């Protein structure tokens, strides 16, 4: 029997840092999308509430490091590191653990780096801790959440992990060089 070695999407690529900012990989135990059936939004919210992590509103994320519920698009929530019990008959629940790569951008000027890659205003005045958006990083569709004053979690399709790291490296070097 072949012994398979588990590798994370950014294995061998991260972490690194330039100037004040670092980029590292975040590994959640599981990623699960939850899409409430028509008319079941309230019932799903009740399940979330009972489980201790409120269902996030549009453009918001709830939870804490390692356990988040992230608004993930129209009618969809991504559970990161959270289990999904009690949703039978209420929502379409899909295991996405092997579909996405998650990275954390952290440090002073992190938003200046994202400003080079994302066509969306992520300034702390309008995009605060707990805010999330579906948008793009260069040409790649992404989910971006501000998890701290200068900390962001970026979720990207796993097949694009290497490209994502490459794009960030260019932007991070450029911002560091101009300090």
């Amino acid at each position, binding site marked *: 029997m072949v012994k398979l070695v588990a590798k994370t999407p950014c294995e061998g690529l991260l972490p690194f840092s330039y100037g004040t900012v670092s980029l590292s990989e975040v590994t959640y135990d599981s990623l699960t999308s939850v899409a409430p059936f028509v008319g079941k939004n309230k019932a799903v919210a009740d399940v979330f509430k009972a489980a201790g992590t409120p269902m996030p509103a*549009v*453009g918001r994320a709830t939870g804490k490091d390692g356990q988040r519920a992230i608004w993930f*698009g*129209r009618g*969809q929530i991504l559970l990161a590191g959270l289990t999904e019990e009690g949703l039978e008959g209420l929502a379409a629940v899909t295991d996405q653990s092997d579909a996405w790569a998650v990275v954390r951008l952290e440090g002073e000027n992190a938003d200046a780096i994202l400003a080079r890659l994302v*066509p*969306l205003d992520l300034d702390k005045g309008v995009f605060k801790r707990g805010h999330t*958006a*579906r*948008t*793009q990083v260069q040409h790649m*569709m992404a989910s971006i959440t501000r998890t701290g004053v200068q900390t962001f979690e970026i979720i990207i399709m796993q097949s694009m992990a290497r490209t994502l790291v490459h794009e960030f490296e260019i932007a991070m070097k450029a911002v560091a060089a101009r300090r």
Partner: protein
Amino acid sequence: MRITCPICGERDRREFYYQGAAVALDRPAPDAGPQAWDDYVHLRDNPAGRTRDLWFHEMGCGAWIVVERDTVIHEVYSTELAEKAAR
């Protein structure tokens, strides 16, 4: 060009995919006859001025949106979720 997604707010045009005229929401009845179906499937106006298009917030939330805009001056007048416009 900026388009306001009813869910996400005002976003860069790059986040959207353009599908075409919003006639796709006005599907004829199954027994409407060949002329109505031929119009629906094949015939499109090509207006210089106001037009209703379907756009897909592909890089954003994934919503289909009806955008009313002007092809001459590029002004966007209104946006609405296709699921609401179709009702």
